[in-house]
């Protein structure tokens, strides 16, 4: 394996981990409510931008990070309470439009509040990067991969072994039946939005020291997260993870070997290929629709 290839692989995996976190967020909300949340990318942006804001305000990094996860989670719950819940029973097209509206509000407010500048903060761990097989591995990349892995394990545990997790799974299988056995489906929806937003924010925080952030990064990151979710098969957690890493790696390889100017176009070309040959995505379940 050439060192160049390894280098592209590392950067692909790092960005891919962020896409995977966003894709998991999409999947979670989609499973709980059939809503495709186009505001997911704004939570990624909020994570990075709020960390920048809180550290500049003089707070120590751990506190800033905690706040930058908590605030987006709160915003996610607000979006659900103020916009999704009142439109209960609306068509999917309407729900998509609502989430687009919510994303515009979040992006616009941040643009007015924090400006159009590009920001970053210091990596979590300072120190010389590690050299592996001729490729440079920055400490922050390890943070990204490590935290993503930890979140995936935590999610697995949450859905397999806790009552709350099982309640969400039950709701995604059949909301009416879930309600009949006493699950508060409104609460499930609220928790899904909070969790998705928090996961998106974590991805945004981890990535910022590597790629910088600004008020408008959410559009691209969110869309690529969505591509990852569709590539993996909407509704599948494992698929979201695999899809995210795949999109990240393909994008990094294309940027390195073909053209960096067209890097952002790659995930969208990938989605056409996947939809054409594997319409249900990599891990999507076969579903039969009922009328």
């Amino acid at each position: 394996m050439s060192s160049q290839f390894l280098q592209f692989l590392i950067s692909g995996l790092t960005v891919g981990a962020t896409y995977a976190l966003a894709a998991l967020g999409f999947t979670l909300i989609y499973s709980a409510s059939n809503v495709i949340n186009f505001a997911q990318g704004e939570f990624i942006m909020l994570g990075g931008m709020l960390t920048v804001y809180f550290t500049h305000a003089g707070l120590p990094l751990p506190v800033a990070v905690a706040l930058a996860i908590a605030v987006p989670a709160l915003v996610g719950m607000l979006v659900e309470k103020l916009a999704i819940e009142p439109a209960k029973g609306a068509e999917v097209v309407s729900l998509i439009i609502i989430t687009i509206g919510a994303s515009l509000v979040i992006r616009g407010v941040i643009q007015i509040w924090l400006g159009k500048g590009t920001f970053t903060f210091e990596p979590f761990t300072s120190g010389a990067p590690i050299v592996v097989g001729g490729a440079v591995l920055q400490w922050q990349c390890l943070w990204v991969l490590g935290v993503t892995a930890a979140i995936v394990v935590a999610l697995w545990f949450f859905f397999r072994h806790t009552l709350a997790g099982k309640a969400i799974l039950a709701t995604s299988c059949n909301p009416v039946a879930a309600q009949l056995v006493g699950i508060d489906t409104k609460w499930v929806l609220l928790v899904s939005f909070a969790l998705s937003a928090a996961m998106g924010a974590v991805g945004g925080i981890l990535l910022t020291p590597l790629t910088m952030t600004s008020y408008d990064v959410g559009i691209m990151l969110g869309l690529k997260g969505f591509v990852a979710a569709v590539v993996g098969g909407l509704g599948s957690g494992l698929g979201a993870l695999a899809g995210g890493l795949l999109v990240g790696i393909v994008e990094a390889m294309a940027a390195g070997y073909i053209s960096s100017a067209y890097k952002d176009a790659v995930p969208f070309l990938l989605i056409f290929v996947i939809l054409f040959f594997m319409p249900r995505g990599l891990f999507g379940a076969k579903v039969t629709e009922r009328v």
Partner: protein
Amino acid sequence: MKRRGILLLGAILLLLPLLLPNAFYYDLAVRMAINAVVVLGLNLLIGFAGQISLGHAGFYGIGAYASAILPTQFGWHPLAALAAGAVAAAALAALVAKPIFRLRGHYLAMATLGLGIVITIVLKNEAAYTGGPDGMTVPPLVLFGFELSGEKQWYWVFAANLMFSVWACSNLMDSPFGRALRALHGSEVASQGAGVDVARYKMAIFVFSAFFASIMGSLAAHYIGFVTPNVADFSHSIELVTMVVVGGMASVLGSVVGAVLLTALPQALATFEGWETVAFGVILVLFMVVLPRGLVPTLAARFARR
């Protein structure tokens, strides 16, 4: 009701010039008419076929750049360039939609969104042809030795265009094709049972609306005389969707009303620098929650009840 609506629109378009004090207002009226025609096409897709396109500005951009590049760099006649752009947009729409419409659900939103972004990236990167992010000038439209110029001449071009589109769309909706489309929105399975080829109809309406958008992109480019990749970008696509939602899904006159209101909105908000995005977002959410059917159908239902 429908006939009266069209007559009323015609009367407004004829009398409006008496009220327009200067070129600025003519320009505003022209831009409203341009948006109205694109929104009409998009509304056929969203309102009638129940599918959403988040990349419609991309098709508009194809038309605009066809009319900019082909005449200046390859010496094409502007009308040939306009036609080539429209055909290219329609062909691209068909190519993208073919695999999508075999699937159920909302993959078209994703695919069109991706398409719009890819188109914008291409326009920004191929600077040798497109002038890159700074854009390029568009030659004036010359028809039979007569050069269209100035807001007043263009006003009549776009007014006529709008009248024709409104008339054509409302006729289309009353045709067997339109009935099939509406049935499809009601229940895909039921309409399939009644013999409607769902995938083909969705495809037809999507291609048709892309064709519409490209032609308007071409004409608008000639009118403004300059294009930048921004005409194709995501936020322009969202503006178009917002116009459909505000005016009313599946409403021909609603499309016109939505376009007029939201084209005027940025002018009204001009004093609140930066608040446009927030305003568009709040409007989208509010309309979907409070007036999910949009202005015109809600008002029409209220009057009908009396």
